[in-house]
């Protein structure tokens, strides 16, 4: 090997190592910074109360509940719609042109910046239901529909045709075949889609600022849906930007970060679990 070539290889390797190290350090720095700034500020009082000007106290319980409510409300609409659409497209639709068009539309839809969903959601949903968690949830449904449709469709395609044939061959009707053989086979896709969607819901701010507002009132589920409310991510924005409460903002950031890690972990575990079940 010539000297020049050796040097070239050495140079490339060094560049790779440096860039990799840089990325790793950046991630670690971000994690460490947020956790160091945030975790000391996570107190029981913060987690279990609502904000009160009289007592000069900030509590994020309403925001936690709002987040839970909006996740539940979104999934209630998202699951049947997304899974139903996926099943229709793969199991019923006969016109391949229509299927590809819808798939293409869904693909495109998932690339649109979320603030545009927020704008449309505000005009369509907030104008009808008021600025409310419900309006926010419906906006999130549209945003996440392509994701859950995709993951469900992908796993529907992995259900072997021979299962369907076996069931039809025993005299099962179409719906029974789908319910007993096809849907159980695509559960992993549905669950993966849910986890990804929950991750996106937790991280969403732009679309929700427009539609769900940023109130911190303590409500039960049904009142909550009809009232405006901030999720954790929106609350983070509000506390940092509008009120300059950086301690609270970092506490929320740390909580969100932990939730994100948890979600990634569960996505991996679910994937592993189903992979194992599929090759017994």
């Amino acid at each position: 090997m010539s000297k020049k070539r050796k040097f070239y290889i050495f140079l490339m390797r060094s560049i790779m190592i440096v860039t990799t190290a840089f990325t790793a350090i950046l991630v670690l720095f971000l994690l460490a910074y947020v956790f160091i700034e945030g975790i000391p500020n996570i107190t029981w009082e913060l987690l279990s109360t609502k904000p009160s000007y009289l007592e000069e106290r900030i509590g994020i319980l309403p925001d936690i509940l709002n987040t839970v409510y909006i996740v539940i409300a979104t999934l209630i609409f998202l699951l049947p719609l997304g899974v139903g659409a996926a099943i229709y497209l793969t199991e019923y639709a006969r016109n391949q042109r229509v299927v590809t068009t819808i798939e293409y539309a869904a693909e495109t839809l998932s690339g649109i910046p979320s603030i545009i969903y927020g704008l449309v959601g505000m005009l369509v949903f907030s104008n009808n239901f008021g600025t409310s968690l419900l309006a926010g949830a419906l906006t999130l449904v549209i945003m996440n529909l392509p994701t859950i449709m995709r993951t469900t469709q992908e796993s529907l395609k992995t259900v072997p045709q021979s299962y369907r044939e076996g069931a039809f061959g025993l005299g099962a009707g179409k719906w029974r075949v789908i319910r007993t053989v096809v849907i159980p086979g695509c559960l992993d896709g549905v669950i993966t889609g849910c986890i990804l969607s929950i991750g996106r819901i937790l991280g969403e701010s732009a679309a929700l600022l427009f539609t769900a507002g940023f109130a911190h009132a303590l409500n039960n589920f049904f009142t909550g849906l009809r009232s405006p409310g901030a999720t954790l991510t929106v609350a983070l924005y509000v506390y940092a930007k509008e009120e300059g409460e950086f301690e609270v903002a970092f506490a929320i950031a740390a909580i969100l970060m932990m939730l994100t890690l948890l979600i990634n972990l569960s996505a991996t575990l679910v994937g592993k679990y189903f992979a194992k079940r599929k090759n017994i």
Partner: protein
Amino acid sequence: MSEIITTKDLCLWYGDNQALKNINLAIPEKSITALIGPSGCGKSTFIKTLNRMNDLIPSVKITGEVNYKGRNIFSKDTDVNELRRDIGMVFQKPNPFPMSIYDNVAYGPRTHGITSRVKLNEIVEQALKDAAIWDEVSDRLKKNALSLSGGQQQRLCIARALAVKPEVLLMDEPTSALDPISTSRIEELILQLKEKYTIIIVTHNMQQAVRISDNTAFFLLGDLVEFGKTEKIFSQPKDKRTEDYITGRFG
């Protein structure tokens, strides 16, 4: 012996490609009919037409008649699900559902409305016994069916088909994916099943056709070339092409 299935001028197309050409065939009840012929000649297509499994393929066009017990299965008032209960199917590759052994066998009866636990237990046990696999699985009915060996899986699929109490059993190369020991077990089983069922079996194995079948139909390029008693077909075929095929000159 009366005929349970007859076909009249049966033609089938996949799009523009004709896979069956004017098939006229009468299958006697409680007997074993073997379908033989080179790859791509339409054996699977034919067998799947008999219980309308081809309905699942959008491009398929069919003309002519298939009469099951004297009634055309393509007529409007035929209930496909009932037809498939009466005419069951065992596939080339064992395809148990990814559920327990018990649930696999109970799938058919449940489909047709049987919910009583006692009744289901009875049916499952009888079907597994009829398929000669009861002794091997009776102590692990709750285990996943995919944990069985290939030969066991195929017998389970036969049990699953028997559990709906069909009249006819269609088998598309049921032993081609199996080892010799499993194959001979399934052949024995098929011979026993002849007492109660009409069996139509596709096979590439000439010895198998001779060993188990009463009648043999020879297909070539979508035509039914010859149909008759198995010993006749294999000892003195009428058609030159049949003779060439069974003596291994092509195919």
